């Protein structure tokens, strides 16, 4: 319907009022750029949260003895843990798997005891990406433990101090041991910072009478979305027979909602582009057709078919929308790319806000790295193009119905 000559004419027409067209382009472009930047921030934040959530504490999937999640009883353990881990690690979608022990204990540096939690962890495996000990330099071995910063403060201990740890073994017996504080840790996991005594797994297994046993096997998949498939296969493993294997969405549904909420917020922002594009295009084109009523009447009188007039108006709208959205896309991509490299400190934007937020036991950093989502770019462009088409309908129909004689009298 719209030939190249129509497009050429449409483009020329647009620039007959430079200021108005520039303003409309700027409105559409800025809206698209904003949408991309917002989208980038949300995406970056969502990714970060997903990483925090599925990171060191929850992982992508977990295996436990049935009911352990209900009461965390010491004696609800997984048996033959090393065999189960070996099987799990053979799954190509499993990036890492490690066993953990969670034992509530009484910890004391002097006479006064404090409630604490021994985390028996596989030091080598947990040093990897999204492990609890990522970036921790102090080695964990034998009776050397790491303790959470807040716990250390409460206990009044420093590295090198000796700590008494008293708890209950999986067999119901009394477990007690003297451990040496190798260092203090600050992790994204609140529980560890507040109460954690991180101990090498073999030592914890010995202390709590849990030979080749653990309370939890944490599984990290190659990507979060592969978790369900990994869980499905893990359930079939001989080493995990009778165990409860769940993915992160089942384990932390409230966090899933949060991530979904962040995604949903973006669509709200997308409405902004619709409005900006619709207003920009409709206004510009309506003005243009009113202004040119006399000229359009002349064209009709000279024998131009109304369809061609309609096509021209639509082409002008489209050109306006497309050029605006492309400019905005370029601007948005450039901004997100720069912000991605430097990161955005949300706490600096909101003066006095904390650098970290604690949510559901996870510390979530306020520094985020916006990430471009190709889907957002496409959605923005499609939104603008569609809106431009719809917004052109009114001016186009008006132009198409003009009576040449009346129009020329304007």
């Amino acid at each position, binding site marked *: 319907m719209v030939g190249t000559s129509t497009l050429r004419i449409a483009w020329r027409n647009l620039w007959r009022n430079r200021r108005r067209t520039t303003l409309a382009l700027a409105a559409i472009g800025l809206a698209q750029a904003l949408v991309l930047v917002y989208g980038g921030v949300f995406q970056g934040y969502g990714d970060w949260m997903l990483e925090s959530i599925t990171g060191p504490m929850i992982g992508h999937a977990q295996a436990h003895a049935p009911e352990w999640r209900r009461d965390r009883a010491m*004696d*609800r353990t997984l048996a033959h843990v090393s065999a189960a881990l070996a099987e799990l690690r053979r799954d190509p979608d499993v990036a890492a798997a490690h066993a953990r022990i969670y034992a*509530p204990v*009484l910890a*004391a540096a002097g*006479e*006064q*005891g*404090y*409630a604490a939690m021994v985390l028996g962890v596989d030091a080598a495996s947990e040093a990897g990406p999204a492990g609890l000990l990522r970036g921790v330099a102090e080695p964990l071995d034998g009776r050397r433990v790491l303790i959470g910063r807040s716990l250390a403060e409460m206990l009044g201990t420093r590295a090198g101090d000796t700590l*008494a740890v*008293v708890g*209950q073994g999986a*067999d*119901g*017996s*009394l477990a*007690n*041991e*003297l451990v040496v504080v190798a260092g203090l840790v600050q992790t994204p996991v609140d529980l560890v910072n507040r109460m954690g005594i991180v101990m090498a797994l073999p030592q914890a297994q010995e202390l709590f009478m849990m030979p080749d046993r653990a309370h939890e096997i944490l599984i990290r998949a190659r990507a979060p979305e592969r978790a369900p498939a990994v869980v499905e296969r893990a359930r079939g493993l001989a080493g995990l027979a009778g165990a409860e294997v769940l993915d992160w969405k089942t384990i932390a549904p409230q966090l899933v909602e949060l991530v979904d909420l962040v995604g949903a917020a973006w669509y709200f922002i997308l409405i902004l582009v619709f409005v900006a594009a619709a207003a920009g295009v409709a206004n510009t084109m309506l003005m243009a057709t009113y202004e040119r009523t006399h000229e359009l009447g002349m064209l009709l009188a000279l024998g131009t078919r109304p369809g061609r007039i309609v096509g021209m108006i639509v082409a002008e709208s489209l050109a306006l929308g497309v050029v605006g959205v492309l400019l905005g896309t370029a601007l948005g991509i450039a901004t997100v790319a720069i912000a991605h490299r430097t990161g955005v400190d949300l706490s600096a934007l909101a003066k006095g806000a904390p650098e970290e937020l604690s949510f559901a036991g996870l510390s979530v950093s306020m520094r985020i790295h916006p990430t471009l989502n190709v889907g957002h770019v496409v959605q923005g462009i499609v939104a603008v193009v569609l809106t431009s088409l719809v917004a052109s309908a009114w001016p186009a129909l008006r132009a198409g119905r003009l009576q040449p004689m009346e129009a020329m009298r304007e």
Partner: protein
Amino acid sequence: MTLGTHTWRRFLLLGALLSPTPAGPAGSAAGPPDVDRLLAHLDDLYRSTSSVARIEIRVHSPRIERTMRLRAWTRGEEEVLVVIESPPREAGTATLRVGQNLWNYLPRIARTIRIPPAMMLGSWMGTDFTNDDLVKESSIRKDFDARITRRSEEPAGWWLELVAKPGVVGRWARIELLVSDELLPVEERHFDRKGRLARNMRFDEVKVLGGRRLPAHMVLILEGEPGKRTELRYLDVEFDVRLADDTFSLSRLEQNR
């Protein structure tokens, strides 16, 4: 004089259930006893000077069966010392209570640790008892309104209902206590603040121990945790023993026993 609401705690603390004189029938099928007199009698019944006892504790849970033997010393209401004698892995481990303070002594690491308030509701030595059970002091007459609710035929005795007075903060809103005609506790039920039965205790095997007639055996059942119960049995008891002054001291606690 305070009367511990937790008959079974008294039982655990050994100051409990000590009647220097035979109680004599207090009411019968003919008519209920006077509540005030009954409570006063229970007060006297539970009053104690000192004791030394050997106790066996059996902890039953769906996956674990454990037996521990303890030796326990008490003096008055405020001082308790419990030392584990077996199994060997735990032998020598001790708990000392003086007033509201509770310490655990761990011979393997030669440390004494004071139990923090946050862990008072935690398990005591892996049993269904809480640390709080060893320390908690409360008074029936002060904290509860008591009344006799009904006659029990089998075993013969009276059911008492104890309802927490308004404004009293505690774990239990209501306690039902079955006292036999011999004026010994038979059953005690604790209801929490939501009105749910939380614990049930039964006292039986009444026999003469240390010259007194008292139930030698008690079972504690936690509601809502099927298969879990803790049994406590006196092997022998001596009452009104003269104890060294430093029996209930930290230094004594840390000495090799």
